[in-house]
């Protein structure tokens, strides 16, 4: 029996055991929490709820009134990743009545260090379903609505029309979806709690609340796509979106319960490396804003990918810019490559340190662009590629930067009798087709 079959059989067994477990858990739950036990003291909260939420109801700003507001509220969390997970976790624990989760992704091994609602056993399953299970096990009073879909204009607009959400939480990972959420929240008059995180830094603010500015008031023009870094490229320390996501939940709770001091018209900038929070004052609402101004031009969702010049996700788009004779696939490469040939790995140094093929030379693409360290390369070429028709194999993570590098290298070394060959699909393809022990990240 091969491993794949074993995995499938185990998954089926676990699924059936889980059903049995759920049945027993439900029995235990019913015996332990009598949901119908009506409190003699409150019309709106039952005996169990009063005990469960007592610690937060003791805060004067919340009280019974605030707890009832939470119970009656409906929150939409867009993205169940690094921000959406901690945000939804605390909202569910706090007793928000209904939480809708939207995400079209599945759980991946690279998510687990920060997306804390998902466990090792959830790998490959829809994030919204994994989040549903965790959130329900923490608080079964909360209605969790998992929606596996891509947040595009038409579907989301209908969704917001059909449900009267009290607050929307932006836990997305790309600029296009951030504009989309902003515009839809303005059009449907819903406050938007917006957080973001990368590496050791995070940012948080609330848009479209109490006559404060919206995202477009601040950023009428989207950033150039090449200036936008994803977590998959720049990296992110798990705690950082954790902190920002938890703060998103805090702002949502303040909005729902009517606590003053909502982070509207202000931006909180967190720098984890220096352990600093900066609270800065933002501009006022722009009366000429295209969506929230006096005479709005945008009254329904637009084409956000076109507007931003970037896709509405943070995955990498593959390119194909070389002639076919400048490419080799990983299978051919693994047959042809000899130890005395030159293999150039153009990934950033940190990625090279994580994992690399033996006998490869690392010169990052950014250095090639700046013509840095090219002398080293020239020396290596002179040493290893003395034969007529020699070639230098160029590899990177997914096979895109290696193509760009080949374009630049063949110009820069046009005088040398050497050919630069791109390894198609990069190390991802190598791991998939040649050596699965090579890490995919």
């Amino acid at each position, binding site marked *: 029996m091969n491993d794949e079959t074993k995995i499938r059989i185990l998954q089926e067994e676990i699924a059936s055991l889980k059903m049995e477990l759920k049945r027993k858990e439900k029995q235990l739950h019913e015996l332990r929490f009598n949901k119908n036990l009506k409190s003699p003291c409150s019309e709106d909260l039952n005996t169990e709820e009063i005990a469960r939420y007592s610690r937060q109801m003791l805060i004067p700003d919340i009280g019974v009134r605030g707890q009832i507001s939470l119970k009656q509220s409906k929150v939409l969390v867009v*993205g169940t*990743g*690094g*921000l*959406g997970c901690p945000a939804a976790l605390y909202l569910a624990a706090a007793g928000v009545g209904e939480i809708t989760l939207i995400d079209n992704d599945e759980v991946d091994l690279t998510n687990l260090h920060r997306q804390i609602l998902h466990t090792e056993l959830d790998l490959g399953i829809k994030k919204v379903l994994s989040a549903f299970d965790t959130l329900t096990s923490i608080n079964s009073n909360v209605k969790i609505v998992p929606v596996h879909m891509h947040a595009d204009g038409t579907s989301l607009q209908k969704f917001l029309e059909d449900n009267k959400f009290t607050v929307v939480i*932006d*836990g*997305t*990972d*790309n*600029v296009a979806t*951030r504009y989309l959420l902003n515009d839809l929240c303005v059009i449907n008059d819903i406050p938007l709690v917006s*957080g*973001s*995180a*990368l*590496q050791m*830094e*995070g*940012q948080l603010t609330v848009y479209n609340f109490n006559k404060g500015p919206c995202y477009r008031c*601040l*950023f*009428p*023009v*989207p*950033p*150039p796509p*090449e*200036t*936008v*870094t*994803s*977590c998959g490229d*720049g990296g*992110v320390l798990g705690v950082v*979106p954790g902190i920002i996501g938890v703060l998103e939940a805090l702002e949502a709770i303040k909005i729902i319960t009517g606590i003053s001091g909502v982070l509207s018209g202000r*931006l909180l*900038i967190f*720098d984890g490396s220096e352990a600093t929070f*900066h*609270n*800065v*004052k*933002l*501009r*006022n609402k722009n009366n000429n804003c295209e969506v929230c101004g006096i005479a709005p031009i945008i009254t329904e969702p637009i084409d956000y990918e076109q507007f931003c010049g970037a896709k509405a996700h*943070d995955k990498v788009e593959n390119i194909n810019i070389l002639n076919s004779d400048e490419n080799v696939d990983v299978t051919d490469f693994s047959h042809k490559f000899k130890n005395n040939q030159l293999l150039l790995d153009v990934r950033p140094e940190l990625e090279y340190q994580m994992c690399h093929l033996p006998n490869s030379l690392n010169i990052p693409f950014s250095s090639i662009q*700046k013509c840095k360290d090219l002398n080293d390369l020239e020396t290596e070429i002179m040493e290893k590629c003395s034969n007529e028709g020699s070639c230098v194999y160029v590899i990177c993570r997914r096979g895109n930067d290696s193509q760009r590098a080949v374009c630049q290298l063949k110009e820069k070394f046009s005088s040398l009798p050497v050919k630069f060959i791109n390894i198609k699909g990069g190390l991802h393809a190598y791991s998939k087709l040649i050596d699965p022990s090579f890490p995919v990240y």
Partner: protein
Amino acid sequence: MSELPITIGFGGGAELLFDNKKNHPVSLPVKDKAWKIGDLIFWIKDNLLKERPDLFIQDDSVRPGILVLVNDTDWELVDTVNYEIQPNDKIVFISTLHGG
């Protein structure tokens, strides 16, 4: 007129264009007219910027997606490029983040 001591800060990834250094205490040289942020942007380009000016400057201002803060206040509230820089001001250029 004497030199104008200020602190220039970069964050949110903008520091990558400046040798990965977030804080730059500088003294702006003496000049005839008052120093405005509009002048400062070009001074930064000539004196601090290490690479890719297009990722910092666009159309005589900062590129879209960079917030400029003058003493923790959005520069829109203090007349943007026309703000006259005062001694010991802290002027920060924050690139907005989009990851999650």
